[in-house]
């Protein structure tokens, strides 16, 4: 199985807890013989790199240097993510089983790649704008929510880390609960559940 993980943070760039989680996920996947590519952002450590543990990283930076906020920054970074993912896709003779997009940042890329290549994607929800902004509803927040909605709508499966988050996704975005899989990071069945979900999403192609 060959997987592309999209995450806006990955060591050595650590913003919150997502970076280390994605790193651990990628390393464990490699151990289970999953060819794992991580497309992520870094301002100067750009390009392709094979990490000691066998994870293949592809770091891109934003071609537009001046921004008026995180939203426009994210929206112009996605094309570089698409470029990196497309390069992986063509190098692998178009054999990518699935994309795992973590949080809302690279949803645009995940959706476009799905539409272009028929590669399904998993949306792994770390947090939601509703909670990050404590219910604030400026156009800025609503725009991010609309991207989260797009990701939830287009994803083949939504992975959350707690039952509470599953209920929140259902409550806020009216996503059918059977589209959501709860996989707790510290549970004993964590990797088994991840692999099972990946296999289901990839269908016969895995």
């Amino acid at each position, binding site marked *: 199985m060959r997987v592309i993980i999209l995450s806006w943070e990955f060591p050595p760039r650590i913003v919150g807890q997502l970076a280390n989680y994605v790193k651990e996920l990628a390393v464990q996947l490699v151990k289970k013989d999953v060819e794992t590519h991580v497309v992520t952002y870094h301002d100067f450590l750009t390009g392709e790199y094979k990490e000691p543990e066998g994870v293949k990283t592809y770091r891109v930076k934003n071609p537009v240097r*001046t921004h008026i906020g995180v939203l426009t920054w994210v929206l112009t970074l996605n094309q570089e993510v698409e470029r990196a993912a497309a390069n992986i896709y063509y190098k692998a003779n178009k054999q990518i089983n699935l994309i795992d997009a973590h949080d809302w940042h690279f949803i645009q890329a995940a959706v476009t790649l799905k*539409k272009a290549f028929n590669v399904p994607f998993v949306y792994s929800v770390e947090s939601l704008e509703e909670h990050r902004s404590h219910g604030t509803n400026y156009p800025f927040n609503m*725009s991010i929510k*609309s991207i989260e909605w797009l990701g939830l709508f287009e994803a083949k499966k939504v992975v959350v880390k707690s039952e509470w988050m599953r209920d929140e996704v259902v409550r806020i975005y009216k996503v059918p609960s059977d589209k959501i899989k709860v996989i707790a990071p510290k549970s004993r069945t964590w990797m088994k559940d991840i692999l099972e979900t990946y296999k289901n999403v990839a269908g016969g192609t895995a």
Partner: protein
Amino acid sequence: MTRELTVMMLTWEFPPRIIGGISPHVYHLSKSLAKNGVKVYVVTCDFPGAPQHEVVDGVEVFRIDSYKNPSPNFATWVYLMNVNMQKEAAALVNRLGVKVDIFHAHDWLVANAGIGLKHVFRKPLLATVHSTEIGRRNGLHFDYERMIHETEAWLTYEAWKVICCSNYMVSHVQWAFGLPEDKLVMVPNGVNIQEYTRNENADLRQFRRKFALPEEKLVLYVGRLVYEKGIHVFVNAVPKILGKVDAKFVVVGNGYMKEPLSNLVKSMGLAHKVMFTGFVDDKTLKNLQRCADVSVVPSLFEPFGIVALEAMAAKSPVVVSDTGGLAEIVEHDVNGVKVYPENPDSLAWGITKVLLDEKYANWIRTNAYKTVLEKYDWDKISQQTKDVYQAVLKEYSKSFWA
């Protein structure tokens, strides 16, 4: 037989959605390309009442959801709209199973979609730069403007070739983004002369009476009412002209300067001489251009100046400021009058000259019509564009993407 060339145009406006000059440009270019054997798909923003998919004059038009949630500002809306445009265009290419040979993006408004599609499908991207932020704003003053400028730079960086509509724009774009000279191609903008010659003999006297008295000359301005178009220069020229010749000044278009300008006109006591019509329908506009005793383009910054060309096609004499693309279209005393930009005295002089000397006016408008026929015909322009496509594809065929 070789397979026909297929191009996917990306544009944020296409008729009936008309905001500025890109909409008619892409419409005429696509239509003429289709006539010249190019398969054209247009992906554009939706518009109330316009179908999601239709075939217009041989061109396949797809309209996407233009993102209608609230967004913080215009630029952010543009990027969000591009999320939708990119995903729909990607789905379209996938679904149609057609091989799109080239993606052709018009301005930064579709930069993200064009760049993403280029990399995902590994096809060459062409960009037409109709205007620049640094030109529109006369410099970059805020991060917001710098962000747009850098998005434009990014588009030209990713594009295989950059098309500009005038020699002025070629040098401006080369300077603004530091591009190599051989990346730039000049293909002029065009005008469809048939649209102006139809019903040539129709009696426009009744129509004209809605705008001006029979004894008044009709002076026409068409354009957005924004600073860079120099409409304030035009309004300041009005009293200087009225001292010499009786005229009615008709201002067509909308923009943020409409309120202050109409207040200014009122305070000058000239409300009965200057008429703000707002946005008018296509037929009214063309009739106005045919009736006008003079058409005025007083721009401070003008990448091309399509409105001057339209007036010339309608056989109305033109007075333009000597700047940008206008300076290339008009040859002074031959097919129009050139005046100093941002100078109401010079502008008033030019307009008065045309209005008082009928022989002169006839001379320049006859020559102007010939210029349009010879240089700005869409059929020729689309052929030039097709040549650019073919040159790009020839280079592309030697790349590892092919």
